[in-house]
């Protein structure tokens, strides 16, 4: 589970486990790590990281249902001058690979969908195509 540090998300000097305050932390989360989690646990893991100012990279993305819940929960947590949402990028599904119903039900279409999520005010996508996501990350 993610470390929950309290009270230092508002731009005050960050100390301790987040490391020096001039860096940006990147969490790369393996598919195996996500596998045993419920949808809400995954969303918490992502949003707790992002709200601390981290960039979260998922080796395997979320299912469409989880993506929809991620947007919903993100919306409920937005608050002025504190958190204004997320930026999310995934590799596009190949347009030729419209998966069959069975694969959809099994959630198969979503595996291997590398996903990058970060705080909206700190991350900007510079370029994106099928093979490359180029992102500019700035400090708060």
């Amino acid at each position: 589970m993610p470390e929950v540090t309290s009270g230092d998300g508002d731009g005050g000097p960050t100390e301790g486990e987040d490391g020096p305050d001039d860096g940006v932390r990147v969490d790369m989360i393996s598919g195996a790590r996500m596998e045993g989690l419920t949808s809400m646990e995954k969303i918490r893991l992502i949003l707790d990281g992002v709200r601390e100012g981290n960039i979260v990279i998922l080796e395997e993305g979320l299912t469409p249902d989880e993506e929809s819940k991620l947007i919903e929960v993100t919306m409920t947590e937005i608050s002025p001058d504190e958190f204004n949402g997320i930026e999310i990028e995934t590799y596009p599904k190949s347009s030729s690979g419209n998966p069959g119903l069975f694969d959809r039900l099994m959630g198969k279409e979503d595996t291997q969908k590398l996903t990058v999520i970060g705080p909206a005010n700190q991350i900007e996508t510079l370029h994106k195509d099928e093979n490359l996501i180029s992102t500019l990350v700035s400090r708060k």
Partner: protein
Amino acid sequence: MGLLTSLKDSITRVTDGLFASAEPKRIGIYGPPNAGKTTLANRIARDWTGDAVGPESHIPHETRRARRKEGVTIERDGKEVTIDIVDTPGVATKVDYEEFLDHDMEKEDAVRRSREATEGVAEAMHWLREDVDGVIYVLDSTEDPFTQVNTMLIGIIESQELPVLILANKIDKEESDIQRIANAFPQHETIPCRRSKDRTWTKCTRKSRSTSPNNARSNQRRRRRRTHRG
């Protein structure tokens, strides 16, 4: 091709897939902010019931709550079908109240608006998972359709097995690119639309249906529909 049909006819086709059951069906109008969702929802509501759903505006997030217009009766193949039209706020993964400040708004007002907007988007996402039976996805055809939010939303709609019609809106504008939308979502039917300058009507062009082999499932649905009708 090039044949102008009424909006009514295009929209009615979204409901085709829903006709099997007798209970009222709910059509959600989704798409990015400013695409023309409310304009379209009002058009549908006025055409069919005589009053509007909500205010249209060039200010993003003017529609901050999902607005419902209930009991829109449409006729199809001699049968009357009642649908609910749900106009949603544009889905986004971020809402920054400072954007509203650019529109000559006081901070307090901007903060309130952004809060309403976030509630509206959360609500719209919830509806999409639980409460809509079909989707009209509206895109501004002058904008790049290949955004993360569009891709995610279409993916969510597909995973819910909802019938969807993609509207390439604002084709009256010079920078409009309908093909770009058709290319971005080849698995769905794209219907170009525009509203009149005096805002009294909206027209949609019926294009030939996609026969992409990737679209076995939708084609199957269409085939079923045809049989149903015939």
